[in-house]
Each structure stands twice: as C-alpha cells, then as structure tokens.
C-alpha cells in the first residue's frame, strides 16, 4: 500500500499530468524535427561522402567520424553553454535540435551509404546506359532500393534520436523528463517520474516493434530480389 502511494500516487499523477502532456508535446516536436533534419542531412552527407570531389569527400568523412565519436551530451553542452561566448546564443530548443540532428545525420549518412553501396553495379549501369542523369538515377533507381534495405537500421536510429531528446532537459528544455522532474520536486513524490517513464514507453515501444516486424518481414524475403 505504501509502495503504491509512493510510486503510483493517483492524485499526484492527475495534478502533474497537464504539465507532463505539455512536456510530451515538446519531446515529440524536438524528436520529430531532429529526425527529419537528421535524415535530410544524412542523405546529403552520404551522397557527398560517396560521389563528390575528393576534398569534399574527405571533409564529409571527417565530419561523420567526429560526430559519431563525440558524446551527445558533451556536444549539447558545448552548443548551449560555450557558443554564447562567441556571440551565438541559441534557445534551448534550437540548441537541442542542433545537437541531435548534427549527430543523427552522421549516423544516418553511414546507414544511407551502406544501403547505396549494397545496390548492384548493374543498376547504375542500366540507368547510365539509358542516359539518365545522376539525380534521376538516384531518385528513381538507387534510393528506392537502398531505402528499403536500410529501413530497419534507419528506424532504430530514429528511435535513438527520440530517446536522446531526454538529454535536452539538461539545457533547461521543458521536455517530458524536465517537466516530470519538476512535478516530482513540487509534489515531493516520484510518481511523475514513473509516469514519464511510462509515457516514453508508450511512445517508443510501438516503434521498436515496428522495427522487429520489418526485420522479420525482410528475413522472410519479400519481393526484393
């Protein structure tokens, strides 16, 4: 009974729920924005890494390696607390979006690259032999096949971005975790934290299951050939 009162306190939960729902909204907005920017940036980065002039290729590779090495929290703190010293003052939302998408586009670039490299050379040759431009070849022939291949790892990456949004609470971002910790302090009761954990699970569990489903379907062998 005591345990229930402490961790699943109904009154505390009801009182903190509006605040937490607002936090959940911020979390989703931050996550979705970063995922979209990360995917778009990742695709551009992958194409630069594969097909541009040698110096740009090298730069893209260096960028990807650095962003995959630096801890996200460190980057976030740098952007939010260090950049103001050179006059760049970002809101907590902008800082968090920047950090998340800068890192996630490096990961998605590598995922896109692996997918593009998995496409047989004959596909490039068939398309080239018909006089198709690089842009058309990519859009109509290569990327549709590559994206199908990288669907599972790419979805995993998006899930990671969504999870990492919780780090934004460090830079005073009013996301789900931040709101929950505040509600917990206010009520002197950990129920909001438990509530936040459950909300995170409700958000992400379906996505995780989606990945498993896609992987199972691919393993069963659809019409990929």
């Amino acid at each position, binding site marked *: 009974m005591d345990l229930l009162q402490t961790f699943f306190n109904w009154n505390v939960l009801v009182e903190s729920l509006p605040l937490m729902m607002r936090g959940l909204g911020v979390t989703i907005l931050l996550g979705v924005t970063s995922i979209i920017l990360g995917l778009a940036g990742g695709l551009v980065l992958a194409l630069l890494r594969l097909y541009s002039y040698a110096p740009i290729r090298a730069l893209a590779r260096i960028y990807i390696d650095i962003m995959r090495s630096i801890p996200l929290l460190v980057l976030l703190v740098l952007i939010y607390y260090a950049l103001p010293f050179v006059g760049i003052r970002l809101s907590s939302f902008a800082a968090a979006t920047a950090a998340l998408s800068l890192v996630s586009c490096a990961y998605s670039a590598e995922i896109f690259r692996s997918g593009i490299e998995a496409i*047989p050379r*004959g*596909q490039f*040759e*068939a*398309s*080239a*032999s*018909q*006089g*198709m*431009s690089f842009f*058309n070849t990519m859009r*109509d*022939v290569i990327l*549709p*096949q590559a994206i*199908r291949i990288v669907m599972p790892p790419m979805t995993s990456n998006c899930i990671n971005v969504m999870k990492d949004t919780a780090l934004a609470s460090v830079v005073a971002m009013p996301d789900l975790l931040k709101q929950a910790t505040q509600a917990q302090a206010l009520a002197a009761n950990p129920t909001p934290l438990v509530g936040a954990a459950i909300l995170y699970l409700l958000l992400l569990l379906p996505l995780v299951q989606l990945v498993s489903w896609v992987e199972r379907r691919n393993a069963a062998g659809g*019409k*990929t*050939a």
Partner: protein
Amino acid sequence: MSTLIEIKKLDKFYGNFQALSDINLQVEQGEVVVILGPSGSGKSTLIRCINLLEDYQGGDILVAGERVEHGPNLADIRSEVGMVFQGFNLYPHLSVLDNVALAPIRVRKLSKRDAQARAKELLIKVGMGDHAHKYPSQLSGGQQQRVAIARTMAMEPRAILFDEPTSALDPEMVGEVLDVMQNLARSGVTMVVVTHEMGFARRVADRVIFMESGKIVEQNTPEPFFTAPQEPRTQAFLQAILHH
C-alpha cells in the same frame, strides 16, 4: 549508308594490363555486327567502351560524329546507344511496365501516359504484353531479358549494344531472346552483339568480327567467315566451338 559508330586506334588498360589494343572498327547505320572470341578476349570491354561504361585511354570513339567522353554530352550519346546486359539489370522495385517507361519519361520527357502506352506496345512486340504489371523477380530469365530489350527499345536509340544477352539464360530460354533480337535486326536497328551463339551470328549478322587478346584478328561477312576463315586462330576457335 552512313557511319554511326567509329572506333579509331582504341587502347584500353587495366593498370598495366592492356585489355584492348589498336582497335579500328566502323559500324554503319542499320548494320548488325556480331563480335565473337574466347572469354577474356576483350569483346565485352570493347562494347562497354562505346557507351563509356568503361573508360578508354587511347584513340577515339565517335557516335554519330560526336566523341564519346565524360562531359555534358555523355548522357545524350548514351540515350542514343542502348545496351542490353548479360544480367538483365532490370529495376527490381518497378513493375515491368514502369521499367520500360521510366527512361522515356525522365530523359525523353514523355508524359507518363504516352510513355506507358508506348511501353505496352513494345512489351507486346517482345511477347511480354501479358506481364506488364508483374515485377522482374516474378519472371524467368528469358522473360526478363525480353523486357530488358523492350526497355532499351523504348528510348528509340540509334544503335543497341548487346553484351552476351543469352549467356546467363537456361538453354531452353535462349531461343525466345534470339528471336526477339532477330526481329529487331530485320527492322533495321543498328546492333553490335557480343555473343557465343554461332547460329545467330550466321543467320543475322551482316559482319562477324573475331577478337583475341584485345585485338581484332579477323572480320568478314558470315558465310566466308564460318566456311573459310583466314587466320589460324579463327580456325582453331571455330573448330573448338563447332565440334563441341
């Protein structure tokens, strides 16, 4: 007749290995040229140079008077010189109809409707009219290659290069593909065909070329080529093949 493809003093290297040396060859408008030779003789490499899927290091290749080289004109030249591959290389994520219609839409700027109507006609021509909605993986090898030929024809190229089009096929499917190619030849399309099908060469070719070790050893019209080859290496090759 006017010259469509002109190859002059062509040299091609893979590192230090010379894959083609001093190739001189002209293909006239409407001509069907079949290239024979043992594997590794450079025949595939030669026709892959014509649309620059392989770079060449010396000499010139001209298509309709334009030099084949990297640059803004390359896509135009390629759209005029189709290629049919040994491994078909159909687009697996597109239906048969879309495989044929894609490049005309993107390169020739045809409307989707016109391109699909034309694609349908071509598929009927190669005997694949009933399979337009299927995906490549649902087709046999011979069927895939016939679709690939229709896809190449859809661009209405001035010439079509065939890179061992029947070598990846089960024996019982070779005939259906050769029939389509023979009809194509009769309709006046310029063709350069790398193949091991001697019967096809004999029936359809205007000229047969024999290559070995990256060089053209002998060329002639089919009858004298097969009945009275001049070079000892050609004689040996034909002996080995025909008595097989």
